[in-house]
């Protein structure tokens, strides 16, 4: 926008410099009328392409879709790193792992309900599994405020989709399927990463892909990380889960898992994460997406844990011990 003004400012400057009023006479005033016109035209020629480019850019996919849809309130797209602008340098309130698995009836995600403030377990009932539209579920780890902003953005888009559909009550295939949501999140995350102001999240997307004729297709499970890497798989995990839960999930995964088996497997992984991740809680939520019922998110519940192995119970600090733990 500042570039718009440049030709006009240039003209004003030249006019003031070349004025014949005695007050402004300067020994070094060299501008004849012809030279003025040359300078003005040179400046205009250089700035106009920049202006056009700016106009085109605002409609392009580089912004992750139309500007109205991709701008998250509070971010300045013009110069993100300038002093006075805010950008995420480190996460403050964070969620830990999210894990997901495909099963016979659809896709299932699990996450705990803890949002930590550094090492403090501050918010024990935070929802990290959220439905975007009746057929798509996302789970987010990382900075919780960025996850909330992303959820708002996605839900706004989903609402617009619903309201501009041919019918409010019937499926017409125009609602975004999970694969589209995953791709859109990828575009948003990559765009933010390019502006050095990432949404500090790892997002898991669960749902179904859509066939060409608009009908619901295969189960879909995808992940997008904070720099815009996007991939899909049968089993996925973020954060600590990628170290501790993925090996378990990969070992036990079969294409024809029943819902109960899938759930037990996810609970086992969440239990391991509670034992071994300092930022995890034993209060978890499980969510599933199925063709018939769409998204269902359970209420939070507590996992059972085991602490009574004999070697756990025996104390190690006695004076006859080896000084270990």
């Amino acid at each position, binding site marked *: 926008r500042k570039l718009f003004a440049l030709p006009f400012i240039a003209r004003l400057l030249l006019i003031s410099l070349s004025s014949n009023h005695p007050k402004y006479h300067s020994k070094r005033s060299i501008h004849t009328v012809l030279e003025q016109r040359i300078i003005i035209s040179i400046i205009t020629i250089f700035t106009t392409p920049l202006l056009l480019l700016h106009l085109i850019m605002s409609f392009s996919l580089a912004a992750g879709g139309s500007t109205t849809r991709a701008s998250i309130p509070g971010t300045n797209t013009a110069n993100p790193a300038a002093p006075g602008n805010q*950008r995420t340098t480190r996460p403050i309130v964070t969620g830990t792992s999210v894990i997901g698995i495909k099963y016979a009836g659809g896709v299932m995600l699990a996450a705990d309900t803890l949002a930590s403030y550094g090492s403090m377990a501050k918010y024990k009932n935070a929802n990290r599994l959220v439905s975007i539209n009746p057929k798509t579920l996302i789970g987010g780890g990382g900075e919780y405020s960025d996850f909330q902003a992303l959820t708002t953005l996605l839900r706004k888009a989903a609402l617009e989709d619903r309201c501009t559909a041919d019918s409010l009550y019937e499926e017409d295939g125009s609602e975004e399927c999970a694969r589209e949501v995953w791709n859109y999140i990828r575009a948003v995350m990559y765009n933010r990463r390019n502006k050095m102001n990432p949404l500090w999240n790892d997002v898991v997307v669960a749902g179904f892909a859509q066939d060409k004729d608009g009908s619901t297709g295969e189960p879909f499970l995808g992940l997008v990380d904070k720099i815009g890497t996007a991939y899909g798989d049968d089993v996925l995990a973020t954060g600590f889960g990628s170290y501790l839960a993925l090996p378990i999930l990969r070992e036990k995964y079969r294409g024809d898992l029943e819902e109960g088996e899938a759930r037990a497997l996810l609970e086992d992984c969440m239990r391991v994460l509670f034992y071994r991740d300092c930022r995890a809680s034993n209060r978890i939520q499980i969510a599933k997406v199925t063709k018939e019922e769409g998204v269902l998110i359970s209420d939070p519940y507590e996992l059972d844990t085991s*602490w009574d192995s004999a070697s756990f119970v025996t104390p190690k600090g006695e*004076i006859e011990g080896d000084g270990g733990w």
Partner: protein
Amino acid sequence: MSMSAGYSMPQQMAHDGKSAETRNLRPNELSTGTTIMAIPFEGGVVMGADSRVSTGSYVANRVSDKVAQLHDRIWCCRSGSAADTQALTDYVKHYLASLAIETGRRPTVKTAAHLMRRLCYENKDRLLAGVIVGGWDPVDGGSVYNIPLGGTCIKMPFAIGGSGSTYIYGLTDSEFKENMTRDEALTLVKKAISHAMARDGSSGGIIRTVTVTEESNDREFIPGNQLPYGPAGW
């Protein structure tokens, strides 16, 4: 990379985004980011601790024993670097054993605490250790000494320590009373440590306690699914 707004530069650079509890540890060093506590009562002392040993965000040991015995009736609760506190405990155990033989008497808790203090103070730039020394001796009965980072040694009516202790200052200040009985002290230790474990990410697992009296050392173990206040919270 340009500087961020909203943080003054020295503040940002000082910690560089690292968490408070791990920034002074060497890379990969184990920390007993912890909750430890001791309450003396008439005739003895109750000492308790959680059981989580962490390396950064990974739980290296979820059932460790942070209550170490220094002598027959003298114990210490360890917090800070696991390596540093194990080494300190070994030294003090050795010195106390020698002292007991040389004097023919039980060493006092005060002596044990001051030995620990000497080691912590004279190596203060090389150690990351906060301990609570407590026990029973015939001179003072039950007593508790808190030795935080730096090597201060201070006798206290009750002591809490470790990273989780910050969450229970209010609780212990309001629930503690002078001249508690053995059972009251034990209940408070268990309750306070549970609450700290519920909020501190570096504390968790089980609660180990020891009740030290003239007659015996009674060890107790509370599993993580039978805590007075569970980690899931409200």
